[in-house]
């Protein structure tokens, strides 16, 4: 990977990318970030003049779906651009170096770019048994993570693992996997949740940080507002059917064929913040709902522990009883109603008998 002092523009020109394509990329990215047309110029200027930002990309307990998503950005240019834009100094999955050579890069970056590099984390650290459930380079991942985070300027949490915990943190969470903000406490963390996050969202976030030299605006949960401020439901193309009251009732019914709303099939669109319904996936080809399957809410905290993906009303696990709000509430109301009836009966009998006594 390149020397970090050259600019991004130097690198792409060397790679044979025309200025025209470069400007197109800037416009496209500015648009996808929801910035004004002037931002494209600003972006181009930044990428021409600023030194590339060194990025350390670490992998904890994860499935690499974030990396897979990242290298499949929609615009054919984007993945090249991004990979050149940042000086991706370390990414054990896609880097050429291996073993001691690779580990040496970590030391070098930590020293040379103290307080300047970005730490991108895919996956999360398990804490049980002193972190022995995830060993990376001979050390528990949690130690390596804390070590590298100490001198980073900012931390990017890729995907649901780093942001929330994801399936490895599912009950009963035997390895005690925790989201990275539980172990990195003193650095700004930007969460880019999703399982995986959308490629354009990932590249957009990186471009923003590189261009403006700061993290984008974050919401209450630490997610970039530009991509996570609206629900799937808010921009869903099937929303009209929802408002009309037209639902798929079964997977093979008329409604399913006509593309009605998947609300009754447990679609988590109404509770999921992500950009799927606008940016879509695989070069904007489709997204789950468009393919006829409800959203499973993969960018939401705890989505893996909310029972079936196909229930509208969430199953509640309490006292070993699994039921949804209606069943529990209905049972309680029923019992109370029966209790009231019995009480009324006893009251009546008691009153009649005391009357007779008098």
């Amino acid at each position, binding site marked *: 990977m390149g020397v970090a002092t050259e600019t991004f523009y130097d690198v792409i020109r060397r790679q044979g990318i025309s200025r025209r394509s470069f400007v197109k990329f800037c416009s496209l990215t500015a648009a996808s970030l929801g910035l004004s047309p002037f931002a494209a110029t600003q972006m181009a200027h930044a990428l021409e003049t600023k030194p590339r930002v060194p990025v350390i990309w670490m992998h904890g307990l994860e499935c690499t779906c974030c990396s897979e998503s990242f290298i499949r950005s929609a615009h054919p240019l984007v993945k090249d651009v991004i990979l050149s834009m940042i000086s991706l100094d370390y990414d054990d999955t896609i880097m050429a170096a291996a073993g001691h050579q690779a580990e040496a890069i970590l030391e070098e970056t930590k020293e040379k770019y103290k307080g300047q590099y970005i730490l991108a984390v895919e996956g999360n650290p398990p804490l049980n048994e002193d972190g022995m459930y995830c060993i990376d380079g001979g050390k528990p991942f949690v130690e390596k993570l804390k070590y590298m985070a100490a001198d980073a300027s900012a931390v990017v949490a890729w995907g649901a693992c780093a942001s929330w915990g994801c399936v490895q943190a599912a009950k009963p969470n035997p390895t005690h996997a925790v989201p990275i903000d539980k172990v990195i406490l003193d650095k700004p963390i930007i969460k880019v949740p999703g399982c995986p996050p959308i490629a354009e969202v990932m590249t957009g976030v990186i471009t923003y940080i590189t261009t403006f030299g700061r993290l984008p605006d974050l919401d209450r949960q630490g997610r970039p507002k530009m991509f996570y401020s609206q629900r799937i439901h808010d921009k869903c193309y099937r929303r009209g059917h929802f408002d009309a009251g037209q639902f798929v009732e079964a997977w093979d019914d008329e*409604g399913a064929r006509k593309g009605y709303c998947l609300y009754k099939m447990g679609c988590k669109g109404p509770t999921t913040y992500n950009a799927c319904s606008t940016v879509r996936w695989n070069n904007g080809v489709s997204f789950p709902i468009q393919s006829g399957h409800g959203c499973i809410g993969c960018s939401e905290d705890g989505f893996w522990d909310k029972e079936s993906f196909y229930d509208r009303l*969430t199953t509640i696990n309490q006292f070993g009883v699994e039921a949804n709000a209606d069943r529990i509430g209905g049972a309680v*109301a029923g019992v109370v109603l029966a209790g009231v009836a019995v009480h009324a009966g006893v009251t009546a009998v008691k009153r009649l008998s005391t009357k007779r006594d008098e």
Partner: protein
Amino acid sequence: MPNTTRPSRFQEQVLAGVADIGGALNRELPINRPTIYVYEAPVRLWHWVNALAIVVLAVTGYFIGSPLPTLSGEASDHFLMGYIRFTHFSAGYVLAIGFVMRFLWIFWGNIHSRQLFYLPIWSRKWWSGVRQELRWYMFLEKEPRKYIGHNPLAHIFMVLMAMSITVGMICTGFALYSQGEGIDSWQAKAFGWVFRLFPNSQDVHTWHHMGMWVIITFVIIHIYAAIREDIMSRQTMISTMISGERQFRDDRED
């Protein structure tokens, strides 16, 4: 029983009528007057508006969670879910604004208007009232005591199951509403903290739904207790929430 309310003109006239026989007006007035004005007009209005809002909210809320059977034809021909949600949100606003107004009324209203907003847990007399009322409901007491406002057991029940749950429903309700209004809306600014407690709004939906069942349970007990007390206790109940006047059936002390 402490009683600072002066007898109304009407009461004086009635008592005057009675007094014709024994000249009661010249004697000391009895400690327990036959009727006392308890619930002022705004309190009564709030009660019934609130009751209506709860009915509308529960019905529409249920159909938001479990929608009606699907409609056929063009999507543009219908707006059923839209109307149900609109009704729910409107009734929600009525309930929330009503609640705020009702709270503000404690600064203008009589002493009884404040009862719903605190529990006198420091009062030994109140706790003895709780015990007595519990025993009355377990058929261990011959008769209940007389109370001008809520009896202590009803008081606990009102504060914990009606007022607290209403606050919870308003907070979770507006938090969920803010999801549609957007993160820049005042609803999101005022109630977005709910998502700190429950980061995944799916849980907020679930608890909001459970809240409905708590309120339904409250309504069952509330209506039963009102009817039962109206018949069994020493004071009026149902008519009190209509006229505001509480009439006692005897003038014995507790």
